[in-house]
């Protein structure tokens, strides 16, 4: 029965090669989505098991993820890079905000602008981007190198299930590390905004602080932490997937890092948008009368 169906398919492919190829491509794309889904599901389900059985590996990864590896560790690791990125983002927002609010004579509100945009857009997006670039890309490079030098196969041969040991531990490490990391990052973005407004544009610090603290809503901050936490999970999952299934030697590892970065950049923005719409969509919950 099955054999006859196979010959039928072969005949079909021979008669309509273009259609058959197109069909194969579509079904291949659907297969890829399924592969991703299964991988992510497994990695999450194995989470508790990873914490229980690979505790030492998890702790090692937390340290490594927080400080970064190789040349990145020399310039201060993930902490410094994330702080750096968000600080300059905060500075840009202050520059842009000061000038455009100044156009309509309300540059006094720069503090408000900084509190609003940093918490709702810039902080989460830039932190997610930084996460993908540092921790995520490093993770893909590491797992990819393990894959092409057949270390992952060696693990499986020694009866160590590689997925919980390599991937779930990384997802958990990312989740744990992101909270202190993001605290520092958002502080850096506030600092960047304040520094530019007060010390470069010469606004009085009291005025800046007044509008800044009046409009900095704790609930927004908590949601922004939530956004970043989800992002950490998504970024680690995507990057581990591309690293875990890397192939094609050294070039393949590099290509996998690129593909993973691209995918997680899109994911970071999408996650921020979805959560923002869900949280602020129905009630903007902004009370300018203070």
């Amino acid at each position: 029965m099955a054999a006859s169906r196979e010959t039928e398919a072969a005949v079909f492919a021979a008669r309509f090669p273009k259609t058959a190829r197109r069909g194969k491509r579509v079904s291949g794309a659907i297969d890829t989505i399924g592969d991703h889904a299964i991988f992510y599901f497994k990695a999450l389900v194995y989470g508790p098991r990873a914490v229980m059985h690979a505790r030492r590996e998890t702790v090692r990864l937390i340290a490594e993820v927080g400080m970064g590896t190789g040349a990145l560790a020399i310039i201060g690791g993930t902490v410094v890079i994330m702080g750096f990125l968000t600080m300059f983002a905060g500075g840009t927002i202050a520059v842009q905000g000061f000038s455009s609010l100044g156009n309509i004579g309300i540059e006094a509100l720069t503090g408000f602008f900084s509190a609003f945009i940093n918490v709702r857009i810039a902080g989460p997006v830039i932190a997610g981007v930084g996460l993908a670039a540092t921790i995520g890309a490093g993770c893909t490079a590491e797992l990819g190198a393990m894959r092409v030098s057949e270390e992952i196969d060696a693990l499986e041969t020694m009866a160590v299930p590689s997925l919980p040991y390599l991937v779930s531990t990384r997802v958990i490490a990312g989740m744990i590390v992101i909270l202190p990391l993001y605290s520092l990052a958002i502080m850096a973005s506030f600092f960047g905004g304040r520094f530019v407004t007060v010390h470069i544009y010469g606004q009085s610090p009291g005025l800046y602080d007044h509008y800044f603290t009046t409009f900095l809503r704790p609930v927004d901050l908590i949601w922004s932490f939530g956004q970043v936490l989800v992002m950490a999970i998504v970024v680690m999952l995507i990057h581990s997937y591309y690293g875990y299934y890397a192939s094609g030697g050294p070039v393949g590892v590099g290509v996998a890092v690129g593909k993973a970065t691209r995918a997680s950049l899109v994911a970071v923005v999408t996650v921020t948008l979805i959560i923002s719409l869900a949280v602020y969509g129905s009630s903007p919950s902004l009370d300018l009368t203070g």
Partner: protein
Amino acid sequence: MSTAAGVPLRAVGDFFGFVAQTARALVRPPFQAREFVDQAWFIARVSLVPTLLMAVPFTVLVTFTLNILLHEIGAADLSGAGAAFGAVTQVGPIVTVLIVSGAGATAICADMGARTIREEIDAMRVLGISPIQRLVVPRVLASTLVALMLNGLVCTIGILGSYVFSVYLQDVNPGAFIDGLTLLTGFSELMISELKAAMFGMIAGLVACFLGLNVSGGPKSVGAAVNQTVVFAFMALFVVNVVITALGIKITAV
């Protein structure tokens, strides 16, 4: 000098030396036109889909947040001005940067790193062919050109996306939206935005080629070089962004 401070400083010095060499090779004749076209096409191909996928949610996010703000101060009709301003001055260049360094530069770095590991670069040098002239110059130019063009695309998508979102979902008057578009954003803002994108593309290309040429070791080092490309490109770009934004505001204000 202690090694802890010496290593990064030396790398920075090497990088500037490399930039100088590239600049010299740029004006020296035979220009690799074929390689340039191939690379530009390649970078455009890997960047196009992620650009579209990233530009749409990003602009919707910015428009959504700005509209909340504008609605609150009773200026919802100005959302066109806000959308155009956000898209052209910040979202366009930033999305372009992220994609060009996340997609284009990583591919360049992986390619150059693999060539270095397989000793193709050394072979070229032995044959008396300058890898900088043959490989680096076309790549850097290609990445600059593609960034320039992508920026235009992102701005267009951004304004269209915010139009759809504001008008159909947030009930902004369509006429007022269109009317506001040119209120804050004019020719000079667009030019600054394009200038930013071109600078970003150039820096990303230079960083990718530099790190790719300096790979040594096995598969892990290529991965690490690509990782560093992303990180260093992002860091450089954010610094350049603040500086050009501030300068641009000063110039257009005069």
